[in-house]
């Protein structure tokens, strides 16, 4: 035996132990990597749900606008997904978080039917600002939330005084009204060649070569168009209009009920027509026509014996 040069002498016991050890280590590594993946998915799902819950206090009630910030311990991408199917559609939040310098995607989508978030499709950062404003059309519909990353600064250059005041009063550090820096996202009013151009004559916002339309005097939808992309904006408008339709039907039932008590408004037929009109909305350019109907309903409600809203 000693004469056989180069032969490796390993007993069967050793060979078996090595093979079995390798198999055990391989299984252990596989299981731990799966566990880490599950853990990350669970963290993303929890954070997504927490973000949704944290947005609840931003339901403004009677205040005009308010802002808050959300700080997430690790670098996060908030994917804003809007689904307009069903009675109210769905606001979906999907998170990607950085782990070991790599973005970890998860399939966990956290959905809310009663929330309307306007942001870019993907917002990245550790600190996020959420600015909310109530939307009425003509009755209160919802509180719209605008999510931006603290890494991006929006500069409202030469904005009308009421927008200047509103932005300044918000005190949100990534929304400024003067001294725009070169890398800020510049929003211009009545001018062209800025990152975002707002045109009050046509009630439209031009961004990345696409145009969306807004309506209403309270600028709620204008901010929505500024902070979101076209796909999300159009989808959320459809969702909002579905809620307008449901609320119209609710007010219609209320009108029938209080008619019997002597509160006659004769708004029933108007609300029925309005509901049909909002449910048929296909794109934001049709908002202006619906706004005219909303204004006429609002006038009739204010002039009635009892106000419905």
């Amino acid at each position, binding site marked *: 035996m000693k004469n056989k040069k180069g032969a490796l002498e390993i007993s*069967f*016991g050793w060979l*078996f*132990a090595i093979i*079995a050890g390798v198999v*055990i280590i391989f*299984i*252990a590594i596989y*299981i731990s990597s799966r*566990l880490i993946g599950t*853990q990350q998915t*669970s963290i993303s799902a*929890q954070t997504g*749900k*927490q973000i*949704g*819950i944290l947005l*609840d*206090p931003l*339901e403004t*009630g*009677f205040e005009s606008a308010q802002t808050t910030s959300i700080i997430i311990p690790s670098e996060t991408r908030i994917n804003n997904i809007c689904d307009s199917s069903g*009675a*109210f559609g769905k606001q979906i939040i999907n998170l990607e978080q950085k782990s070991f310098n790599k973005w970890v995607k998860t399939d966990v989508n956290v959905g*809310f*039917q*009663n929330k309307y978030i306007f942001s870019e499709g993907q917002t990245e950062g550790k600190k996020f600002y959420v600015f909310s404003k109530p939307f009425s059309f003509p*009755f*209160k*519909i*919802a509180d719209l939330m605008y999510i931006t990353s603290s890494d991006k600064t929006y500069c409202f250059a030469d904005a009308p005084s009421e927008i200047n005041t509103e932005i300044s009063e918000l005190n949100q550090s990534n929304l400024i009204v003067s001294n725009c820096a070169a890398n800020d996202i510049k929003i211009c009013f009545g001018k062209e060649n800025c990152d975002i151009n707002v045109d009050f004559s046509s009630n439209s916002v031009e961004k990345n070569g696409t145009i969306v339309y807004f309506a209403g005097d309270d600028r709620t939808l204008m901010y929505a168009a500024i902070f979101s992309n076209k796909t999300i904006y159009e989808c959320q408008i459809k969702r909002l209009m579905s*809620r307008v339709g*449901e*609320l119209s039907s*609710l*007010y219609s*039932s*209320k009108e029938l*009920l*209080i008619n019997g*008590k*002597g*509160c006659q408004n004769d708004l029933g037929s108007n609300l029925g027509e309005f509901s049909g009109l909002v449910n048929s909305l296909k794109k934001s350019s049709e908002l202006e026509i619906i706004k005219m109907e909303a204004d006429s309903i609002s006038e009739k409600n204010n002039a009635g*014996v*009892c*106000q*419905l*809203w």
Partner: protein
Amino acid sequence: MVSSRGQMKIQQMIFMIVAVTLLFILVGVFFLSINLSSLKKSSVNLAEENSMILVSKLANSPEFSCGNAFGSSRTNCIDFDKVISLKDRAEYSDFWGVAKIEIRKIYPNEGDKLCTSKTYPDCGVLKILDKNVKILPYSSNFISLCRKETDGKIIYDKCELAMLLIASQDKTQ
């Protein structure tokens, strides 16, 4: 003699490997059960947190709030004439992400008499949403429940003291 010693060693090795594998499996199951229970706990916490925050804001949401229907804007004021129509609307079953929403009149106390289109407004409990599932403890908030009322000659606003109760579904079982 040599071959039987070798067989003995192989048997020892196999027993050892089986034992080590079982140990790994046991440790894994133990770790997984801890992980799952903490996941369940955080799911319950999130659901409870959701209903706690929601109950403080729901009265001011468009489907519930009085708006300007009773004069000026009021916080935590629910329009009874409006919410009675909200009862059992299938479209709203998943809208707030909770399993139960009900309003209980506190003063005047009308007992457990359920509010329907027939008993309205002389009733004590309005069940707006009831999913018939296992629920977590209720979160509650005091509200004023207002409606239009008439004595035949004049129309006036009548507000009563009530409690808004919300419970989330217990998904742990």
